[in-house]
């Protein structure tokens, strides 16, 4: 016989150590006298043991930790600048030169671009707003750049593809001021930075948990950086490339 409903509750509470000592003792005596109850006890104990041993406890990823910590830190903490710098340094030390930033005179400053765009993206997430101009309207965002940079970037409306425009900002990559568009996908922020194109070998596809997708068109290299998954960021890049620019 399967134990009655009440006994099942008692049995579970007993196994979970939720009974006070007097009731636990009473229940132990019943358990010793009732084989069906004892069998049910054995099965629940086996289940608990298997779960405890073999079902892993999930842990928050470092990216999630960063995203949540950033919520409670509207002012960028000094530690973050140091961290961003160390990402750049670690990358210079650990890899062959790839894309490098050109100084104003067209000379290579010797710093790869990828860690710099990632550092700018991280820095922007630490700020109270990842943008300097907040608008979902590309007709507002594009002219905003006009007054500040020699060339304003291509701005594409991707709302229907699931990537609404949030706004824009100017990042300084190496010594080059670069227009950066900010899009969103669910709660993820995507930074899209436009820089003059140059030759180089393939940059890394991820740095410190941030995915990177880059492509070049019309003499401009676009760098998309986000904690979105790589396939989703590729979707974004595809949508942007296919999208219609401001006339």
């Amino acid at each position, binding site marked *: 016989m399967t134990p009655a409903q009440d006994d099942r509750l008692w049995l579970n509470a007993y196994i979970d150590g939720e009974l006070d000592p007097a009731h636990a003792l009473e229940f132990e005596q019943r358990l010793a006298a009732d084989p069906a109850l004892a069998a049910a006890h054995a099965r629940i104990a086996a289940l608990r043991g*298997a779960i405890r041993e*073999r079902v892993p406890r999930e842990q928050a990823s470092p990216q999630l930790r960063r995203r949540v910590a950033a919520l409670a830190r509207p002012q960028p903490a000094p530690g973050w600048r140091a961290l961003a710098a160390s990402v750049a340094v670690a990358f210079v030390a650990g890899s062959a030169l790839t894309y490098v930033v050109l100084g104003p005179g067209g000379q290579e400053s010797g710093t790869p671009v990828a860690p710099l765009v990632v550092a700018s993206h991280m820095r922007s997430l630490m700020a109270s707003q990842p943008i300097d101009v907040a608008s979902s309207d590309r007709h507002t965002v594009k002219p905003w750049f006009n007054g500040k940079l020699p060339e304003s970037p291509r701005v594409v409306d991707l709302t229907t593809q699931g990537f609404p425009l949030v706004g824009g900002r100017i990042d300084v990559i190496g010594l080059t001021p670069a227009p950066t568009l900010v899009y969103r996908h669910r*709660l993820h922020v995507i930074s899209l930075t436009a820089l003059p194109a140059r030759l180089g070998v393939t940059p890394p596809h991820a740095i410190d948990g941030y995915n990177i997708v880059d492509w070049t068109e019309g003499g401009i290299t676009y760098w998309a950086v986000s904690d979105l998954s790589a396939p989703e960021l590729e979707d974004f890049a595809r949508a942007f490339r296919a999208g219609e620019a401001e006339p």
Partner: protein
Amino acid sequence: MSRADNTRFANVVLPYLDDAYALARWVLGNRADAEDVVQDACLRALRGISGFSGANGRAWTLAIVRNAAYDWLRKNRPAAIVPVEDLEKVERVASRDNAAVAPAQDDPETALIARADELRLQAAIEGLPAVFRETLVLRDVQGLGYREIAEITGVPIGTVMSRLARARDRLIETLGAEQ
């Protein structure tokens, strides 16, 4: 948000981020949605932190995560939410079937359950209806007590007990069956 709120948030909520993520992950079933929901929940927690009574930070945080997760499900996957009355109906039928098969004292079922590997356990837990799953996960994976689970899920302790018993019965039935 004042500096004091931020500090409070860091002390009350951040220590339970793993618990928060684990709960969201089990309720929603995948990492990306769980992370979005935890971020949303943390934003809610930060906004409401001045209303926190100071009793139990873990239960307070997890209750917010749970609400955020169910709000998300209602919006994005309404089919995943089964009304509890329907579950009770199914349950009555199931336990009648169960009663017909009397377990022997030293049954092979127990041995099968004890040997279930990670994949089978995971699949069986994921197959539970949401309210049973969250109760079981909070108790057996995350190690919380009945009182805390009652606080998080917003039901009386008696309901926690019956949900837990049912969740375990279902797992025993699934895992105790030959593959």
